[in-house]
């Protein structure tokens, strides 16, 4: 119990530091968004101070001392108020993120979980039958796929399956003729559009899970307790799963939780290549348009999810490994 309290405390502390950094960093940059916009307009003609003031009010630029800004900022975060997006004006930042988040969470999240489960199971199988046909072919094949650059795989898939064979749409999250509502028609279209992005992520990431698990498991198979379990006449499945895989999984859990944390940040490359309406695409849009409120909110959510994922990893690790729970092995 003490372990979980300590970990929760640590989570809150790091979260606070991250939020504060997120507050400070934009303020360390010279100028402000209104000035940046003004500079653009100034090329077309002179701007009066009234116009500049109007623009600052419209964008909701902060006023008052740094200290009061900070408290305002903290209370805004607690209320989920991240201001107005510049690039999607007049939509609020929250509304923009709420539109993008489900796309990324569902697609990238599901694929991340799926590739982890499939990759780990295949890794266990390969390690248990090490040196046999499946192991030697899988090791070579997946070393190859995990070394492929993602954008290249995505472009090749678009070219082959989208352009030449015309099996799948080449971009977007759903058919342009539909509006995002919850019905079968729309769901079907969304699934159809997600096949290529999902496949490309799956293919490029499963190798890491498989090889990681395989190598860990082979190390574990050399442990004395595996030898003893075999000498005890336990069934093959018990030795492979309860004794070997259970222990080999421990370090992998951390990696998995980390990659789950990365899901919210979106797969920037995937969403850019496929013009997929998720968080990664949003991040790219915000960057290109100097949309500070949106960027700040995105950073906040990405940090939050990474920290939460780390916290989850710690908690799961504590459940799985008694040595961690009791405060370190003796």
């Amino acid at each position, binding site marked *: 119990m003490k372990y979980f309290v300590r970990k929760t405390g640590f989570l809150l502390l790091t979260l606070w530091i991250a939020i504060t950094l997120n507050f400070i960093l934009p303020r360390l940059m010279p100028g402000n968004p209104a000035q940046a916009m003004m500079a653009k307009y100034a090329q077309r003609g002179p701007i009066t101070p009234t116009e500049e003031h109007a623009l600052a009010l419209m964008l909701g630029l902060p006023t008052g001392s740094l200290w009061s800004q900070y408290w305002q900022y903290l209370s805004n975060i607690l209320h989920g108020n991240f201001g107005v997006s510049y690039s999607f004006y007049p939509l609020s930042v929250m509304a923009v993120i709420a539109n993008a988040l489900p796309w990324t969470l569902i697609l990238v999240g599901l694929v991340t979980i799926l590739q982890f489960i499939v990759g780990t199971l295949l890794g266990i199988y390969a390690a248990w039958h090490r040196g046999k046909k499946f192991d030697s072919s899988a090791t070579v094949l997946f070393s190859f796929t995990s070394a492929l650059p993602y954008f290249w795989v995505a472009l090749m898939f678009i070219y082959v399956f989208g352009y030449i064979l015309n099996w799948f749409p080449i971009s977007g999250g759903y058919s342009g003729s539909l509006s995002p509502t919850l019905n079968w028609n729309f769901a079907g279209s969304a699934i159809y559009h997600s096949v290529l992005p999902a496949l490309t992520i799956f293919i490029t990431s499963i190798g890491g899970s498989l090889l990681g698990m395989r190598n860990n498991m082979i190390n574990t198979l050399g442990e004395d*307790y595996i030898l*003893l379990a075999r*000498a005890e*006449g336990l*069934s093959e499945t018990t030795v492979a799963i309860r004794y070997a895989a*259970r*222990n080999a999984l421990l370090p992998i859990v951390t990696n998995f939780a980390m990659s789950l944390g990365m899901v919210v940040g979106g797969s920037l490359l995937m969403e850019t290549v496929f013009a997929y309406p998720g968080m990664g695409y949003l991040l790219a849009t915000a960057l290109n348009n100097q949309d500070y409120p949106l960027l700040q909110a995105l950073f906040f959510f990405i940090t939050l999810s990474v920290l939460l994922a780390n916290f989850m990893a710690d908690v799961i690790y504590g459940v799985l490994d*008694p040595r961690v729970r009791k405060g370190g092995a003796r």
Partner: protein
Amino acid sequence: MLEVKDLWVKYRSQHGRSVSAVRGVNFSIPDGTFMGLVGESGCGKSTLGFAIARLLNSQQLEISGSVLLNGEDLIKMSSRELRKLRWDKIAIVLQGGMNAFNPVLKIKQQFTDVMKAHGQGRAEDRDQRIAELLRHVQLDPALLEAYPHELSGGMKQRVAIALSLVLNPELVILDEPTTALDVIVQKAIVEMLQELQRHMKFSVLFISHDLGLVLEAAERVMVMYAGKIVEEEPVEVLLEGAKHPYTEALLSCYGDPQAKELRFKGIPGSPPDLSKPLQGCSFVPRCSKAMSACRELEPQRLELERGAVACHLYTKMQGGIGK
């Protein structure tokens, strides 16, 4: 009764040269005997122990010969027959017990895993049995709820011994069971083991590099050198005087506590490379009593009145070399 007949274990190497770690071993362990097996590192004693328990990875080596337990040949058994027999008839205890337990399972779960695998169904019976065994090895039954990392090395080794006895095996093979422990804990564990063995009447194969410890613990001793058993005797016979020059050299590594001046002798040289074919006796280069015959002919196991030895010094006495 365990009988090992002409057992060979050859480790295959990918680079062509295979290593014969066990080279034609013959011996038997009658029921209820505490047998010690001594030899220096790399002599094949652990390989022999694991080969008897059929725990060697058959992909990397060749085993020939036979290991008969009550007349049944373990080498010829299918893996299903073996699994039934494992722990029920032959149990093992590993070195130090450090990593002998699954770190994520409680001690109790590791006991119940074995008992369930061998069809001991009722939870209360199992709990009672485990608690009883822990008391036998002088541990508090409350330790059942502990995880392996919460135990000290000595405690772990006691638990490992208790675990080996859970199904009342006929033979317990202990591979360097006390090597990672200090001498005080070592002695306590050996004494406990002797008592358990007399009480529960299983036989023991106690593998160690420490001749002194084995002489203290065992009833009979086998001395292994370069993959062969060179001498086998009851402890009291060996203490009266070793037959094989190697055993003699091993004994002289220990000092006589009553001597006024202690002088220790090591054994010069090092054991032979087992990946090369050997001609004659493997101990020749280090032997102080080597004769010309030793270089040409490999000495065979010779049954004596109360033991056996493989050395030309004795073949000669029995009627000459070259029979």
